[in-house]
């Protein structure tokens, strides 16, 4: 009896360990890329019954880690892979596939926007994140402490923003008051506050969460509009990227091709980003 139990447990374990993930494509990573991929996955699965695409959030850092440790087929990232990350996974040859373009936009609570703060210079942003400016009053806004929202260290949005604003993608922001993760979470904090400044992907702006224009040194204002992202006028832009280990094959390839197709690119545009074909 006991032998049977042990045997069957063993068999089960072996089964559990050897079963192939045939038609399943796992994706994880950036919450900026997530809406595109998750919608695309739904459509793809409808078109190809029997295939399964599992999508998980977590941030660009998680995406790189899981592709690096070959735990998922596709990673979603909204920044470049760092040297350090590449060196951490010598057995993985990261291959990138751009699927769209996005801007990282400094955003404020609608109260601040309506009080007249609609544009900031990169230098002002840097001072706020360094903690040198801590009240909206100093920027001719209302007399309110700025609630500076930072993001978790490995998040793509943060890397891109800090690279341009503070000069180093992993710079510490000593002026920060809150550290949050997903775009969703940050959007919520911005709406709940009346004096917040945060950084969000262009796809997540709405009436309660207003994107600021960037005031260039020559005095021109550049809005975070799709047009300014396309022609690269907006100073903080980035590619939305899928990464794989080596050249994708099978269902993974089919899925990436689907996102790059006209239909897939429509999803990219619908989510507030710029398609890659343009």
């Amino acid at each position, binding site marked *: 009896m006991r032998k049977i139990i042990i045997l069957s447990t063993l068999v089960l374990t072996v089964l559990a360990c050897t079963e192939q993930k045939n038609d399943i494509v796992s994706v994880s990573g950036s919450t900026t890329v997530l809406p595109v991929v998750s919608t695309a996955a739904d459509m793809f699965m409808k078109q190809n019954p029997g295939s399964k695409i599992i999508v998980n959030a977590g941030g660009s850092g998680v995406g790189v880690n899981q592709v690096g440790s070959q735990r998922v087929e596709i990673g979603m990232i909204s920044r470049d892979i760092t040297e350090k990350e590449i060196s951490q996974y010598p057995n993985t040859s990261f291959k990138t596939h751009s699927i769209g373009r996005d801007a990282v936009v400094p955003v404020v609570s609608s109260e601040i926007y309506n009080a007249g703060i609609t544009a900031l210079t990169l230098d002002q942003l840097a001072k706020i994140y360094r903690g040198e400016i801590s009240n909206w009053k100093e920027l001719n806004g209302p007399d309110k402490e700025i609630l500076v929202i930072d993001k978790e260290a490995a998040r793509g949005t943060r890397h891109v923003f800090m690279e341009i604003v503070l000069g180093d993608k992993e710079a510490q922001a000593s002026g920060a008051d809150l550290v949050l993760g997903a775009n*969703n979470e940050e959007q919520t904090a911005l709406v709940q506050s009346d004096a917040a400044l945060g950084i969000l992907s262009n796809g997540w702006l709405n009436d309660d969460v207003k994107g600021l224009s960037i005031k260039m040194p020559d005095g021109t204002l550049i809005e975070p509009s799709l047009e300014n992202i396309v022609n690269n006028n907006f100073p903080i832009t980035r590619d939305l990227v899928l990464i794989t280990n080596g050249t994708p094959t099978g269902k993974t390839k089919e899925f990436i091709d689907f996102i790059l197709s006209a239909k897939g690119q429509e999803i990219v545009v619908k989510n507030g980003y710029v398609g890659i074909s343009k």
Partner: protein
Amino acid sequence: MSRKVKNSLFKSSVYLASFLSISILLFLIITLISKGINAVSWQFLTSESSNFGSQGGIIYQIIGSLLLTLSAAIISFPLALGMAIYKSEYIKRNLFQNITNTLIYSLNGIPSIIFGIFGLIFFVNILNMGISWFVGGIILAIMILPTITLSSYQSIISIPISYRENAASLGLTKWQVIHTIVLPRAISGGFTGLLIGLARAIGETAPIMFIATAFSGVTFPNSFLEPVSSLPTHILALAQQATNPQALQNAWGASLVLIILVFIFSISALIRRIHYSKVNY
């Protein structure tokens, strides 16, 4: 201060504190039910979630949660039973009893997030099992092991000595005694413990969020090594978008369903406990 004043001060603080506690508890219940009931409908319970969970229902989250708890129960019940019997029937030395007790209590005290990290290191990375519901089931099983063991053990040691004496006088062997007298009690007590354990396991987020669950695209798993979605991790994703009214509404709905599942387990445990405490020997 006179004794009388002190006494009435004390009394009023007792009433004030109780009033506070009761209003907090009422607030929780009323909020959860009233917010949840608006979201729950037959369609909500039976359709897939879409658009980050802010639309659609929670069918695969319910299935995932049940799958996780079911596998936890299957893995942990026999282990706990064996340990309870070994502890009560075979370990005679006090030192050994103390060692096993300490180990069980430590296992019981481990914070849930630590189980998650352990699962991530050991099962996901070292054994390379990937992110899967099976790993989640194992981790939850380990987590509820002490509850079942202790409950089963308590039930065994409450067997009156006279039963064993009678059995011994009939010339039964040790295993016959265990089989006829100890085992039924162990199973019964263990089952109560299992229900308590499952009530805890089904609501846990931290142990499974790194190792067992995925965000979207999950349907019924075809193998041991696929992730599932679960109610607690779904609520976590929705709570982060709490200013999106649709997402929030679905979060309340999922919470109500989760709490009902928790209560089904814990009320059954409570009923069993009250019922069996009335059984006298």
